[in-house]
């Protein structure tokens, strides 16, 4: 039971990290990014390639991959999303356009990943010796991945709640129409939010690379799980996404150890459906 709890929390930490980025992109930039999982995979493959080719440890790669993710998000927003934002008069229009555009981006990135890294499942052995946590042996790489989640999510939640930057982000997420009245350039803030979300996708990708087995076509699973968590936690609700992410990790681990590993996805979507039907605004409401 304790093993399930600890392994579940570790898995949930990665999910939560992924969901935070998606909820930032949707909450601040109003873009539902269906290529989110592929962005995560880019980071994961880069980390693996750097490790296998040059022996660069994933933790060191993290320092370069996260800012690179921010830069990639910045460019994606400027080149691809900004024209959609500029021509959409309503929020609904932007949501539909961005879903279609990022759906295309998904296959574009997937194709590039397939050509570059092949279709095989990939994983690396990095710090995989066991560490004793309350009597349970947990691989060190999983603990580090969990640590990345705790630090990144903690810093984000603190910054959103306590800093001037966070106040501006919240203002744009909640009432974009009023933001220009206090001198906020909504376009600039949306670009920052989208770029930061991509940076979190990259951080999630580093965590994935450290302890999971993944393939170039598996990005959609990350997107779906992040989406489920975002909706469960309440769209735009950062703390809700964190809690829902941890909960999903626990549930999946519990189902796979006590019932059947093949049922984890089914369990995830069963919960998703229940939440959608019973509390469409999310368990913790809108952020």
């Amino acid at each position, binding site marked *: 039971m304790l093993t399930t709890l600890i392994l579940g929390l570790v898995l949930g930490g990665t999910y939560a990290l992924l969901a935070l980025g998606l909820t930032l992109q949707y909450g601040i930039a109003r873009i539902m990014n269906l290529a989110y999982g592929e962005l995560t995979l880019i980071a994961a493959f880069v980390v693996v390639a750097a490790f296998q080719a040059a022996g660069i440890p994933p933790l060191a790669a993290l320092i370069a991959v996260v800012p690179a993710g921010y830069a990639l998000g910045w460019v994606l927003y400027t080149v691809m999303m900004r024209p959609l934002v500029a021509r959409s008069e309503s929020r609904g229009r932007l949501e539909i356009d961005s879903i279609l555009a990022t759906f295309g981006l998904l296959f574009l990135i997937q194709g590039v990943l397939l050509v570059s890294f092949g279709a095989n499942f990939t994983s690396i052995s990095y710090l995989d010796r066991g560490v004793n946590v309350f009597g349970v042996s947990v691989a060190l790489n999983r603990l580090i991945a969990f640590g990345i989640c705790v630090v990144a999510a903690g810093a984000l939640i603190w910054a959103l709640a306590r800093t*001037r930057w966070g106040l501006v982000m919240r203002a744009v997420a909640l009432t974009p129409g009023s933001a220009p*009245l*206090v001198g*906020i*350039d909504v376009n600039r803030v949306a670009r920052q939010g989208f770029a930061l979300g991509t940076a979190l996708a990259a951080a999630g990708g580093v965590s994935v690379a450290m302890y999971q087995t993944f393939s170039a076509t598996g990005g959609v699973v990350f997107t779906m799980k992040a989406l489920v968590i975002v909706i469960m936690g309440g769209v735009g609700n950062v703390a809700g996404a964190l809690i829902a992410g941890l909960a999903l990790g626990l549930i999946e681990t519990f189902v796979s150890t006590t019932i059947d590993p093949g049922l984890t996805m089914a369990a995830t979507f069963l919960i998703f459906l229940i939440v959608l039907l019973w509390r469409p605004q999310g368990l913790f409401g809108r952020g």
Partner: protein
Amino acid sequence: MLEVRDLRVRYGKHVALEGVSLKVGAGQMVAILGANGAGKSSLLNAIAGRIPTQGGDIAFEGQSLADVPTHALVERGIAIVPEGRGIFPALTVADNLSLGAIPERARASADGMRADVFELFPRLAERRAQIAGTMSGGEQQMVAIGRALMSAPKLLLLDEPSLGLAPIVAKEVFAALKRIRDTGLTVLVVEQNARATLALADFAYLVEAGRVTGSGPAAELRSDPAVVRAFLGGAMASET
């Protein structure tokens, strides 16, 4: 300080402003009076960069404001309280005020300004932790005006600050405007309540069907028979 020359605004085929010109001098409180649909709000929104114009020029401190987006105006010293207030209803009163001080120019003076706003509207000090959207209309108007003041503006634009407020609350808002005027801040206010506004303003423009049909010092307009008939009507008689 602010000069509008021959401003034209159209919405499709509908002409909202047909060559409006006006001047606001430093330290003045200038009112724009007119009935519903006369073009008052279009005028203020055009100055605030919230709607496109089809001709004419708007200059602030000698510099043209053409193509200056709304968010950049605040940094230049123009604060806007739009119709409908434009506050952040999901955030607290304190957060709304802090957002007012986001522009670079306002940051150093934010603490002093917050104290001034709380003195002007003691209710906001009591309710600083309340979610702004749960307050009454008059209190939300105070939040909007307080937030505008937080940006340490040189010019304050107010669009119908008394609209939709109960008479006693509107009175409170006008009392606050009087105190703001007395600090020497330059104010341009659009209002339907001509009587209360003329009692405060230094100068006023009368707008009808997209044109300026009259202007003059507020004290003169108050006793102008034509103005009394068109804008002050029976309400004046009932009060005096």
